[in-house]
């Protein structure tokens, strides 16, 4: 089983990835997933985290099959 990771907006261009599948190895937090996928240290303050399409945070424990998204401040409306 794996975890689907999505990037949006300017972050998608910085990371140069829109979507990645990573193998799930428990226990795994959103912060650890970010390090694993981006090679960067902590999640920047401006980056928002969503797990299964709901706002979440860096310390959230992930599970098999989760969809995790990282994105910059939203600019709709």
């Amino acid at each position, binding site marked *: 089983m794996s975890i689907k990771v999505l990037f949006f907006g*300017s972050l998608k261009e910085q990371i140069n990835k829109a979507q990645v599948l990573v193998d799930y190895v428990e226990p795994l937090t959103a912060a650890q997933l970010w390090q694993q996928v981006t090679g960067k240290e902590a999640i920047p303050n401006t980056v928002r985290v969503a797990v299964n399409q709901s706002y979440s945070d860096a310390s959230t424990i992930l599970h098999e099959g989760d969809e995790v998204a990282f994105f910059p401040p*939203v600019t709709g409306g």
Partner: protein
Amino acid sequence: MIQIKLHPHAFDPLQSIQTFQQQAEFRAAAYGANAIFIGTMRDFNQGDDIVAMHLEHYAGMTERQLQDLTEQVLTQYPVDHVLIEHRVGDIVPADAIVVVAVWSAHRKLAFAACRELMEALKRDAPFWKHEVLADGSRRWVEHNTAG
């Protein structure tokens, strides 16, 4: 009623409101107060001419988040009906981006709910604007201002 819709093509927000009001559940003589906000794409931003824009969104989360933030606002501002429609995809200046409309028996509540819904949408709905400037360059809008 809470009605939320994303438009991949140009839409007419006044037509959306009219269509909303034609539903069986909508009893026009019950509300009294209808507050509406319509956001339109400008042809300028931060001192530059903007010729086009791509509205990226997180499909799935967008609809869910708009529903959640509406339910949240309604706990504090219990209006009768909420209509939210938002454009996605490639747009040009003067195109409608968003309409938020609320109906209530009370004017104060209608104004407050409409404003709070717009603030919540601007803060939390997962859309990202990618502008095309007159010289052909592109840039991401970095953040929304608080209203």
